[in-house]
C-alpha cells in the first residue's frame, strides 16, 4: 500500500495553471526527488499534498482522503520543511526541536516523558547535543538546517516533505543533508519527497525522480531515464550534456560557452 497517492492534481494561481493533472505516489522507505525549473510547480505540489493549498484532484494519505485528516493527526504522519523556516531571535536549538512535539502536546502545552525522550533521541541522532542551548541565530547554515530536520523528526513522521532544503548550503553540507535523508529513508523506513534544483545530488540519492515543467510531469522514473539531455534541454531551455558512469547515476550539466 502506498503511504501517499495523489491523482489528477491541478491548481490555478489566478489564471495561470500552476499544476496540471499530476499523479504521484510515495511509499515507505523511498526517496523521491522533485526537479524542474523555477515556477514549474514543485512547491505548489508539496503544499497541495499537505493541504496548505486546495486544488482539484484526489489526495490520499494511508488510503484516507486528505480532507478526512485533522491537522493534528496529519502532523503525526507527515513533516514539512519549507524553503526558509521562520524563527524567533530568542529561540534556542532545544526550543526549535521541542516545537516538533506540538502535535502531541496536552492542554497548556504539557509534555509527557515520551516527548522529552524523543527530543533527546533526535538530538543524539543529528549530533546536536552540544548545540542545544545555543541561540538558533548563532548557528551556521548547515547546523540550522540540521536543527530544522530535527524539528521534523521530533514529529515522529512516516513521511517528510522538503522544499529545496539545500538552497542555502555549501556543497559539503548539501551532500551531508542528502546522505541524512537517504539514511532516514532506509533505516527508519521514512518516505521522503524532496524538491531540489541540484539534479546530480537528486540523482545520486533518490530512488525516483519526477521532472516537472509548467505544472506537468514530463518524466518520472530512475535517474538514468529522467536525466535525458533532450528532455532536460527542452525543459530548462538550455543545452544540457550528460556523462554516463558505470554503476553510478549519470551526471548532467549545462553545456555552455562564454
Amino acid at each position: 500500500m502506498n503511504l501517499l497517492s495523489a491523482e489528477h492534481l491541478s491548481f490555478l494561481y489566478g489564471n495561470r495553471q500552476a499544476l496540471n493533472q499530476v499523479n504521484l505516489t510515495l511509499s515507505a522507505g523511498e526517496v523521491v526527488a522533485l526537479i524542474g525549473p523555477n515556477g514549474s510547480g514543485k512547491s505548489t505540489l508539496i503544499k497541495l499534498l499537505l493541504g496548505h493549498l486546495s486544488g482539484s484532484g484526489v489526495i490520499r494519505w494511508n488510503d484516507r482522503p486528505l480532507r478526512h485528516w485533522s491537522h493534528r493527526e496529519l502532523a503525526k504522519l507527515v513533516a514539512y520543511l519549507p524553503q526558509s523556516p521562520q524563527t524567533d531571535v530568542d529561540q534556542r536549538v532545544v526550543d526549535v526541536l521541542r516545537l516538533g512535539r506540538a502535535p502531541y502536546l496536552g492542554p497548556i502545552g504539557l509534555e509527557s516523558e515520551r516527548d522529552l525522550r524523543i527530543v533527546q533521541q533526535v538530538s543524539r541522532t543529528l549530533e546536536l547535543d552540544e548545540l542545544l542551548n545555543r541561540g538558533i541565530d548563532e548557528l551556521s547554515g548547515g547546523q540550522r538546517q540540521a536543527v530544522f530536520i530535527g524539528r521534523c523528526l521530533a514529529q515522529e513522521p512516516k513521511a517528510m516533505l522538503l522544499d529545496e532544503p539545500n538552497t542555502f548550503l555549501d556543497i559539503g553540507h548539501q551532500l551531508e543533508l542528502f546522505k541524512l535523508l537517504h539514511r532516514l529513508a532506509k533505516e527508519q523506513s521514512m518516505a521522503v519527497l524532496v524538491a531540489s534544483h541540484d539534479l546530480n545530488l537528486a540523482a545520486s540519492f533518490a530512488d525516483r525522480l519526477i521532472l516537472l515543467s509548467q505544472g506537468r510531469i514530463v518524466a518520472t522514473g530512475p535517474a538514468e531515464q529522467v536525466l535525458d539531455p533532450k528532455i532536460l534541454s527542452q525543459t530548462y531551455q538550455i543545452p544540457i550534456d550528460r556523462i554516463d558512469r558505470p554503476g553510478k547515476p549519470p551526471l548532467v550539466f549545462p553545456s555552455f560557452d562564454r
Partner: protein
Amino acid sequence: MKRWGIAQLLLTVGLSVALWLAVALGCVCVGSTGIHWPAPGQWAYRWEPVILSSLVGAALAAAGVVYQAILRNPLADPYLLGVSTGASLAGYLWKLQTISTLLGALGLGTGAVSQQFFAFAGALISVAIVLALSSRRGRLEPLTLLLVGVIVNAVNAAIFLLISTISRDLTAVPTFLIGGIQTNLSQQQILAAAIAVAIGWMILMWIAGHLNTAILSEGEAQSLGVRIHRLRWTAMVVASLITASAVAISGPIGFVGLVCPHLARLVVGSDHRRLLPISTALGAALLAIADAVSRLMIGSAQTWLPVGVLTALLGGPFFLALLWQNRRRMALAGGMS
C-alpha cells in the same frame, strides 16, 4: 532539559504569584504619607490600589505577550495598537447620560458588565480598524501597523475630547489621556474586570503551548498540527478582551504591555508556557510599584499622579531603544507574512 509537565507548570505559576505577592506586600506599606506597616484599620484601603494596579498591570502584560506573538512584532503593545484608547473611549461613552438612558430604555442594563461589554466592543473595533488598514494581501507590515495604531489612538482621543467638550465635562480628560488607578470604583466594576481578566488569562494559558508556533509561517504551523488562523483569532480576541476589561477601570496605561514581555523574555526565554505567567506577574508587580511610587511622589487625599505618567516616562525610552535595535532587522525583513 526539563519536561514541561504539571510540576513545572505549578512551579512557574507559584513563582509568579510569589514574586507578585512579595512586591504587593511591599506596596501595601506605601501610603501617601510615607512607608510604614499599615495600621490594622488601614489594610483595606491600602490593599485596594495595589490589587487594582496589579490587575491592570497583569492584564496589559499578558495581552502584550500575546500581541507580540501573534503579530510577530516585538513592538506590539495594547496601547500602541489602539486597543486601549478604543476601550477607553467606549468606556467613556457608556458613562454618558444619553447612552446610559438609551441602554436603560433598551433593557440592556447599566451595570458594570455592560460597561465591560462596551469597552470590549471599543477595543475590538479599534483593533479591527488597525489590522484592516495595515494588512496588504494578508501580510501585516510592522511599521504600518504602528503608524496606523498611532493614528487610531489620535482619532480616538479627538473623538473623546470633542464629546467631553460638547458635554462640558472635562473631569475625565486626564484619565483618558494617561490612565491611572482610581479608587472610586464600585465593587461590581472591580469584580467584573477581575473575572473577565481571570477567565481571559486562563484561556491564554490554555493555548500558551501553541502560541510558540505563532512565530512560524502559516504552512509550518499547520504542518505541526496547529490551526493557526483559529489560534491567532482566539488569542487576538481574548487579549483584546482582557485589555478592554483593564482599561475600562484604569484608562489607557502605556508601555506595561510592551516592557514586561521583554523583561520576562530576558529571564525565561521565548517559551510562552513560561513567558505568559512570568510576564503577567511582572506586569502586576511593576504597575503596583509604579502606582505606589506615584502615590508617594505626589499624593494626597485629593490628588495623585496618574501612574500612566510614570510608565510613559520609563517605558518611552525603552520603546525607542527597542525600535533602534529592531530597525535593521525590520529594514531587512521589509515585512511579515
